[in-house]
């Protein structure tokens, strides 16, 4: 079952990473920035798994699972921050959150 080359997967991963980076740069809502970060992490995962398949090396898949756990942790902390911001009636605009003391 010879499907597309690994280069095709890497191209999709690169484009997905670019889309995620664009989202992080262009959006101002903290929640959407977090979602775009998820896109970037998923692009990295796709590249890891494609190369793991290419080199017949399982370490890529293990690393992808670790990345998933780290992404879940990041979402956990990020959403905790969003809830804390919302509770203090602060704006969720990343341009206005320039001071850590709020």
């Amino acid at each position, binding site marked *: *079952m*010879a*499907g597309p080359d*690994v280069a*095709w*997967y*890497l191209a*999709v991963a*690169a*484009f*997905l*990473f*670019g*889309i*995620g*980076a*664009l*989202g992080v740069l*262009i*959006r*101002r*809502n903290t*929640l*959407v920035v977090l*979602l775009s970060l*998820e*896109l970037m992490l*998923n692009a990295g*995962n*796709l590249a890891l798994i494609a190369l*793991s*398949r*290419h080199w*017949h090396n*399982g370490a890529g*898949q*293990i690393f*992808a*699972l*670790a990345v*998933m*756990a*780290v*992404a*879940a*942790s990041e*979402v*956990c902390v990020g*959403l*905790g921050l*969003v*809830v*804390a911001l*919302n*509770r203090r*009636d602060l*704006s*969720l*605009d990343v*341009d206005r959150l320039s001071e850590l003391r709020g």
Partner: protein
Amino acid sequence: MNGLVLASAGNVLVWIVWVVAAFSCLASGVAVISFSNAFYSALALIGNLASLAVMYLLLSAEFVAAAQVLVYAGAVVVMFLFVIAYVGPRRETPWSGGPGWQTVAAVCAAGALLVEIVVAVGMQASGTLSPESNVGATFGTPAWIGRVFLTDHLFAFEITSVVLLVAAVGGVILGAHTRRTDPGIITPAPTREAEREPEPEVVH
């Protein structure tokens, strides 16, 4: 001859599945960053995750595909949806607000990053990315992943669990009610939901 026809038919099928998955992956990625409502963005992320899971299956990473759907669609996106619903509707127009040069600069920076990735990967890997060969039948199965995780990568496994635990505790502490304590008297945090204006806030 018959086997050859069958094999090429299988190839075409794999290509069709791949093209559909890749297209929906990129399209839902664009949808995530371009919806003005964060709720729709989170829903579009589910489509992105599902199409990525299909591509993982094509790459014979069955366990990672299942974990992707379980962890992301089952936990992460649900948490996102809960928080978005908790925060309330905040509309934001993605392509406007803020100075125009900022948008242009963001597009340029993202494009430069993409070009950089493509050039770096192409220069590093041109020639070595030969057509993929067959892998063993056990590659990527849950049994294989479990054995590798608990033998070769045991330390990474344990560290991952500690990281998750610390993040969960941190998330709870960040999201917990902050009580203002007078000396001797503990007063509950004032509820601000009643004071908040019901109409959606415009974030620029």
